[in-house]
């Protein structure tokens, strides 16, 4: 039984589409109800919170997984990043009200000590530390966009897809930190011991991409 871990939430549909393109059976996944472990034709699917997907892979519970690049970066887990699917695309950005955005146009001394709300403390810390900017972080688990409006923070680091939630909260993008998309990941053990099965899946994905963009990547 080959075990695949998939993230729940908004990216699950993207993940299922990727599997469908690879002819992996997804009938039961689509009609999953409240089930979190689903078996279908030699595959076992584990549905986990996005931030937990790397943990299932790291401990060898799942042979292969689809995980967002934001989650891989934030958890810092040591995984094998096999292929970027390009699906579930969005961006991690630094965003804030116009007044705060204008501060970032000037000397960095003007933004020292700002308060930044985020559910990505590791990514945010690395971003500001690399620029030598000392800020204060507020770790939230959701609804990050309302933090500046309510005076909890000056700006935010969060993921943005269309930007409509930012606009609705009178925020604009100050800086793009990184693009985000779903990636195929595995553990180091699975890479060695389940290589044939992984190669088949990733190889199929590479072939479908090659047909689409003329690229000749093999893995």
């Amino acid at each position: 039984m080959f075990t695949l871990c998939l993230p729940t939430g908004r990216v699950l549909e993207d993940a299922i589409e990727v599997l469908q393109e690879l002819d992996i059976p997804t009938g039961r996944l689509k009609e999953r109800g409240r089930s979190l472990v689903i078996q279908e034709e030699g595959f076992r699917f584990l549905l986990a919170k996005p931030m937990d997907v790397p943990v299932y892979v790291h401990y060898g519970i799942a042979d292969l997984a689809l995980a967002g690049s934001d989650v891989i970066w934030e958890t810092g887990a040591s995984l094998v990043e096999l292929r970027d699917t390009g699906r579930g695309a969005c961006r991690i950005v630094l965003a804030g009200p116009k007044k705060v955005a204008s501060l970032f146009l000037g000397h960095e001394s003007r933004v020292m000590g700002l308060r930044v709300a985020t559910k990505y403390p590791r990514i945010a810390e690395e971003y500001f530390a690399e620029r030598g900017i000392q800020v204060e972080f507020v770790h939230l688990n959701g609804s990050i966009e309302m933090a500046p409006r309510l005076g909890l923070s000056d700006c935010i680091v969060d993921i943005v897809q269309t930007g409509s939630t930012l606009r609705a909260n009178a925020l604009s993008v100050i800086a793009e930190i990184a693009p985000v998309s779903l990636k195929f990941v595995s553990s180091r053990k699975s890479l060695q011991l389940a290589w044939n099965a992984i190669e088949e899946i990733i190889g199929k994905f590479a072939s479908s991409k090659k047909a689409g963009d003329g690229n000749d990547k093999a893995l």
Partner: protein
Amino acid sequence: MSRLPKGTRTLGGVEAERVERCRRTFFETFSAYGYIPFYAPGLQLLESAWDKFPPRFRKRLIPVYTPSSEACCLRADMTLAAVAYLSTHYSPQERPLRLCYAGPLYRAPIPPETDFERIQFGAELLGWEGEGADVEVTALLLRSLRQLGIHSPVVVLGHAGFLREAMSGVERAVAASLMRALLERRYDAYFSSLDDFHLQKAVKKRLLSIPRLRGNAAKTLEEARALFGETGPLRDLELIVQALGELGLGENLRLDLALARELEYYSGPVFEIFSGNAGVSLGGGGRYDGLLEQYGIVGQALGFGLDLRAVASLSREEGAIPAVAWCGGLSPRVALERADDFIASGYRVELSWQERREGAIRLAQTRGYGWWIDLPACTAYELDPGRKEGP
């Protein structure tokens, strides 16, 4: 309440017994082949270690000061100590030197791991050339694992020299970017880098193939030769594969020509060992000629380190049968002599000096022993955990 520092743990009971059994098995196997036990200090001077570690690894060091105000870190690596010991205690004529060790190492954990302390067994063969050394170390390691009841460990072999040769015609900055991606096992980034840089078509084709050159040893070598021709590193690997195959260890081998180890001092064949359910390796090692050069020593060396707790968790080896031995009023001399007889026939006994037979049986049952020995009667009884009364 007694609290432990975060990231550390106390080992006791069955787990400690297993770890100890693994440690003993490794020591016995390796010392039978001339590996001398070696104990290094728990601290290493930062001034000696800093430039030997890559930046990624330096971030995982745990710094401390000695009472003499010397800046150190908790020992994060044993190989440096082994090489320093060789360079200062042995003349070139006395080499090769074989060392083995077991002890704690300290590195900041990579999430989701939380422990920063691990008990490692390792061995180093310093100052010898040729694939015989690689085969010796790998074979002894696999033998030890088999003795511990781990029958299907997989040794994944790679070659640091293969990667260096494969990238020899590539601009230095590009090669560094590609090597970093392989080291971090970010194959998607590796492919993206190949897209970003202008490379000759043939070179690009070869480099694109590297992450999939893995799996069955013979097949992988054949595929690699078709792409890269007959090279020194591929010959090294073939000789190792062939020799281990002749020793009946071929089934345990895989190749991974994209394998790069975290510590950059590896220069020749490298390997990692996998088994069981955990997603990470039990350990690994390889050849590190470059590190010897830094200590002014010419020659080759290789070594490996294994996580003893991870190995112990997979160990299925049955040791001596644990039993409570009731002395039943015998004199200490007679009781110890009779216990010796049981130990010689495969038991591990805990003496019970209690006067009452029933008390000794109850103690054995409470402590989860499967066997109880009546020393006056020189008889061993299997305790049935479901039964309340004694034998």
